[in-house]
């Protein structure tokens, strides 16, 4: 439309036939961005506009000369072909993109199922095998063998349970059905409660916890934040040697709750640090027992609190997770 108005003013200078080309270019450009129906409409409309306003005698739909009649017909055909062709190209592009995405998601799910079937089947195999052994081979097993098999079953069951919990959490996050039950949290209690749950995992590690005495209460979902800290510390224990020092810090900086979990272990492969929170990402050569879900769940849970998490390597050695959450806080003093 705007182009035809411009055309109206300048057609005396350039002649009405050039206006036709200007309109054609406009229709072609439109075809690159709009769907087939609006483009065809534009093509027809522009042909009519050209006829009505530019082809002499102007302001009528009649076309004076045979030459102009032919031109109008050709204009019309070119505009149509243009619109249809562009549309076709766009469709092919779209299909290629969809195919590409599908391939990507097939690849993603293949990784997922491989990882899952490994992580779920290993403990199940251990349980079935050990039980089978105890049932059919009982008289040939020493008391110590039996105790060992039972302890294998126990370890495998807990591992299985951990995996199932991770999967459930991931599904809840992805389905968007996770609802936060925010309440006032004593961060000190939160940290020590989680450490208590991790007692058996942390026996061979050194711990340092720094929580300022006057840290306010923050409104968070206690259970979910417990899961966050739990997963982060489990992650540290999976990738660092014994005797590693794990430092847990909490503070209130610029109204935000800032929590840091650092270790003095090997640090994170610098090239892959961006992938740490990706689903199913695992450092090459890491110990079995993880699904690569722990950190992506952490990120999901922190983001569900409208917070952020980052991972960085420390200058000397080790790495550090920093969580920042902006939420209500309270400095109630007991009276």
């Amino acid at each position, binding site marked *: 439309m705007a182009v035809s108005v411009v055309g109206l003013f300048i057609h005396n200078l350039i002649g009405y036939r050039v206006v036709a080309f200007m309109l054609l270019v406009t229709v072609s450009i439109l075809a690159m961005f709009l769907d087939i129906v609006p483009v065809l409409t534009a093509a027809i409309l522009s042909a009519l506009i050209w006829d009505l306003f530019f082809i002499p005698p102007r302001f009528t739909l009649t076309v004076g000369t045979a030459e102009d009649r032919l031109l109008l017909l050709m204009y019309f055909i070119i505009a149509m072909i243009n619109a249809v062709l562009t549309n076709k190209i766009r469709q092919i592009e779209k299909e290629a993109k969809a195919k590409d995405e599908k391939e990507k998601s097939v690849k993603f799910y293949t990784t997922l199922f491989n990882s899952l079937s490994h992580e779920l089947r290993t403990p199940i195999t251990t349980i079935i095998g050990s039980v089978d052994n105890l049932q059919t081979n009982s008289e040939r097993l020493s008391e110590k063998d039996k105790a060992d098999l039972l302890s294998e079953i126990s370890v495998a069951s807990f591992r299985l349970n951990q995996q199932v919990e991770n999967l459930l959490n991931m599904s809840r996050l992805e389905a968007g059905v996770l609802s936060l039950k925010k309440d006032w*949290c004593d961060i000190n*209690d939160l940290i020590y409660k989680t450490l208590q749950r991790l007692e058996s995992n942390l026996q061979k590690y050194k711990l340092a916890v720094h929580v300022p005495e006057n840290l306010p209460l923050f409104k968070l979902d206690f259970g979910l934040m*417990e899961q966050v800290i739990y997963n982060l510390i489990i992650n540290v224990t999976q990738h660092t040697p014994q005797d590693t020092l794990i430092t847990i810090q909490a503070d209130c900086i610029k109204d935000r709750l800032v929590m840091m979990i650092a270790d003095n272990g090997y640090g994170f492969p610098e090239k892959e640090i961006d992938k740490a929170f990706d689903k199913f990402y695992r450092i090459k050569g890491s110990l079995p027992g993880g699904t690569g879900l722990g950190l992506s769940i952490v990120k999901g849970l922190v983001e569900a609190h409208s917070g952020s998490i980052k991972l960085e390597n420390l200058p000397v050695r080790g790495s550090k997770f920093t969580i920042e959450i902006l939420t209500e806080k309270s400095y109630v003093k007991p009276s």
Partner: protein
Amino acid sequence: MNNASVLIIDDESQIRRLLALTLHSNGYKIFEAATGKEGLTSVASHPPDLVLLDLGLPDENGHEVLRHLREWYTNPIIIISVQSGEEDIVRALDNGANDYLVKPFRTGELLARIRSALRKASSEPNVPTASFQDLTIDFVNRIVRKKNAIIKLTATEYSLLALFARNEGKVLTHQYLLNQVWGPSHENQSQYLRVFIAQLRKKVENNPNRPEHIITESGVGYRFIGKAIDE
């Protein structure tokens, strides 16, 4: 506490068998019910000393069964819930359940909870003093001693501790504690509760960061432990 009778209401036969085996070998008399309806009938015909109730029943919602039972049945009810059901747990506790277990649980934990609930049910409620390891509470004179030394508590801290002590081993929900100690108008002001719990721990616990008496039950409330769990 041998020969106490326990009714297991759970639709999973495997869980029922496991619980029955465990409890039977520990001297309990077992009744089983696979549905809420069966459970209600069983309680009516032979009231057990304790009910283990699964919240996820197929016919009637476990909460409904709990509500029906609590209309007349006063013995302990321990609910069994699947993981991450905090809301369910709080609701059941507020509706009269005595305790909860989250699947999967260890046998030792199950036995400890049952023992604690039964002990509580049979204990004398009107004792003038109570002792919990190094802690002694004189309810008559409102005096608390730790390793024989009197510890100074504010009125609110004392009310909180006394409430815990009278409900030893039982999970008390945030709502319940706020309601009992601060009154119904403070039910939504859990910030007071957090601060007073921290304060109380500093006074009664040997290490407030590793509490032995006032235990946090994530997202649910607190549990007061008087004695070591497997005494």
